[in-house]
């Protein structure tokens, strides 16, 4: 038997190569003795790698590169606009995460090289997952994304909560992966192919309506829903977010979600598009449950990270609306909202990290009380972020939600649009609580160190405000406002991503 090596489009693959190559370089650089190299050069190199990936992604925009084409089948990895949008989101989130973790405790505990290498590897997994056109690649991408994140969650090894969140995430995450894998196996069994196009042909033909196929779809939806924090598979989210080091939480929150939704869009809207009448109502129900559970769970949380975790569950519900309708408009709306979601969450997490280091209150809501007066440069980004998450006009969150509702109405799911609106209404209750704490409450006086021991996450060296945190917070906040007022550049990108799947 003669084998031909698959044809690899190196230029198309370059964004992933940048990430993985960067991971290796960072890992090696981290072995150097000099403290300067480890603490300055390694994060810098990581940023360069993320930046390179971003730049190469921009270079490849519109090329629709198909890499790894084996003979007679479709490429296993497609770098179309959808993949590239996810790449951009992941790269931006990665740069922000590196900045947030630069002077944090976690990289020092886990050794700098390893920490940033894991971050880069996970990012590569996300890109691969979003671009996968083959079940094997999809599963590999998912695991490449997850395994480094399990470790990253547990990097603050001396903090019990960090370990707990790592192990919980690992066990629940692996259960989710196993379920997902079983689903993929059943889909393969029903359609006879691992390639999305083969699956589409199979699902349109004799395998359509088959028990094996439908069960397989159900299991894969659970697996992807798990990664995207869709209720009732969301329970790892609050615990994982709260326990993980905050910069890692920021990365998990935005980048994982982008990858999971990218993969979900491609798998459901390309491979299983003919089964849409079967899965769409189920997803719509899951979206409703997710919106309700997320918003209701966020009420009354006093930990900001936990609050954002529940809010991310709710936001996943909104995002599902774009998947349900399986239209190019829906894909655009989802991608648009993912980008917007990245900005607003990064702003919030940057502020949380800053306050964790400046106050002894950790991520409790008390840490931001009264910062409207004392730290307006942090209060504004967090205010913008909260208002945008709640969907107030003139913020990017508003137009994002508007777009999603429009997609839902257009796809015949008006009631889901109504659920989104009602969900946003409930969400005001907890987002505004944070805003009120910032502007209307007096700063909680930092009691003496003996009365309130410094939380482990707080950095003893960081007494003064740290510029990189302000940079991330202000840039993300400004972007949220900018795209709220002038969203058309982002719209163009999202529309291109929407068209790339070949839907109506």
């Amino acid at each position: 038997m003669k084998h031909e090596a698959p044809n690899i489009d190196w230029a198309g693959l370059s964004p992933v190569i940048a990430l993985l190559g960067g991971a290796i370089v960072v890992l090696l650089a981290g072995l150097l003795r000099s403290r300067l190299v480890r603490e300055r050069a390694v994060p810098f190199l990581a940023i360069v790698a993320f930046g390179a990936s971003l730049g190469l992604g921009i270079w490849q925009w519109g090329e629709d590169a198909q890499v790894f084409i084996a003979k007679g089948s479709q490429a296993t990895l497609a770098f179309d606009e959808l993949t590239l949008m996810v790449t951009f989101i992941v790269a931006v989130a990665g740069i922000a995460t590196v900045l947030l973790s630069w002077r944090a405790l976690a990289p020092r505990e886990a050794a700098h090289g390893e920490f940033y290498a894991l971050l880069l590897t996970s990012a590569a997994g996300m890109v691969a997952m979003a671009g996968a056109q083959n079940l094997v690649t999809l599963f590999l991408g998912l695991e490449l994304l997850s395994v480094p994140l399990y470790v990253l969650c547990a990097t603050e090894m001396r903090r019990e909560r960090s370990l707990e969140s790592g192990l919980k995430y690992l066990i629940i995450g692996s259960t989710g992966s196993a379920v997902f894998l079983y689903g993929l196996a059943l889909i393969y069994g029903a359609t006879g192919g691992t390639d999305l196009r083969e699956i589409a042909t199979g699902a349109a033909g004799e395998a359509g309506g088959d028990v094996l196929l439908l069960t397989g779809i159900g299991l894969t939806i659970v697996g992807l829903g798990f990664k995207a924090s869709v209720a009732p598979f969301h329970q790892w989210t609050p615990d994982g977010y709260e326990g993980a080091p905050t910069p890692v939480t920021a990365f998990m929150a935005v980048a994982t979600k982008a990858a999971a939704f990218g993969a979900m869009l491609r798998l459901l809207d390309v491979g299983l598009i003919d089964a849409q009448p079967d899965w769409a109502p189920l997803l719509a129900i899951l979206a409703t449950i997710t919106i309700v559970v997320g918003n209701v769970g966020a009420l009354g949380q006093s930990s900001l990270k936990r609050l954002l975790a529940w809010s991310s569950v709710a936001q996943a519900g909104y995002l599902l609306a774009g998947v349900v309708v399986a239209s190019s408009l829906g894909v655009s709306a989802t991608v648009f909202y993912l980008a917007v979601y990245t900005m607003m969450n990064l702003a919030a997490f940057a502020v949380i990290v800053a306050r964790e280091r400046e106050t002894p209150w950790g991520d409790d809501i008390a840490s931001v009380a009264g910062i409207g007066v004392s730290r307006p440069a942090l209060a504004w980004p967090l205010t913008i972020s909260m208002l945008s998450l709640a969907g107030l006009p003139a913020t990017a969150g508003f137009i994002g939600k508007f777009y999603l509702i429009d997609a839902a109405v257009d796809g015949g799911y008006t009631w889901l649009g109504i659920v989104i609106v009602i969900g946003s209404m409930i969400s005001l209750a907890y987002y505004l609580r944070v805003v009120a704490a910032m502007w209307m409450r007096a700063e909680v006086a930092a009691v003496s160190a003996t009365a309130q021991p410094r939380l482990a996450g707080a950095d003893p060296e960081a007494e003064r405000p740290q510029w990189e945190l302000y940079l991330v917070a202000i840039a993300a906040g400004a972007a949220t406002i900018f795209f709220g007022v002038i969203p058309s550049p982002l719209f163009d990108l999202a529309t291109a991503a929407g068209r790339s799947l070949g839907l109506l």
Partner: protein
Amino acid sequence: MNINWYLAVSALVFCIGAAGVLVRRNPLVILLCLELMLNAANLALIAFSRMHGNGDGQVFAVIVMVVAACEVCIGLGIVVAMYRRRLPIDVDEMRELHG
């Protein structure tokens, strides 16, 4: 032999794994049960591969084995880290994070 038998065994193994995750409190055993679940999927993949007569499923299964090994490594690493901190090796004791 009918493919259904393979599938039945595979489903059974998957359920045993899932039940193990639910009832065992030792993280090491839970990791073992996760392995069971993944291997159940492997069995299904190989059976399907045989049924369809193409090699995709077998390739998939080999890759899954690698991935499963990685997951267990990480799990063991975290368990060791917990052991070093003298934390109880019992998932029911991990309740710092809740609510």
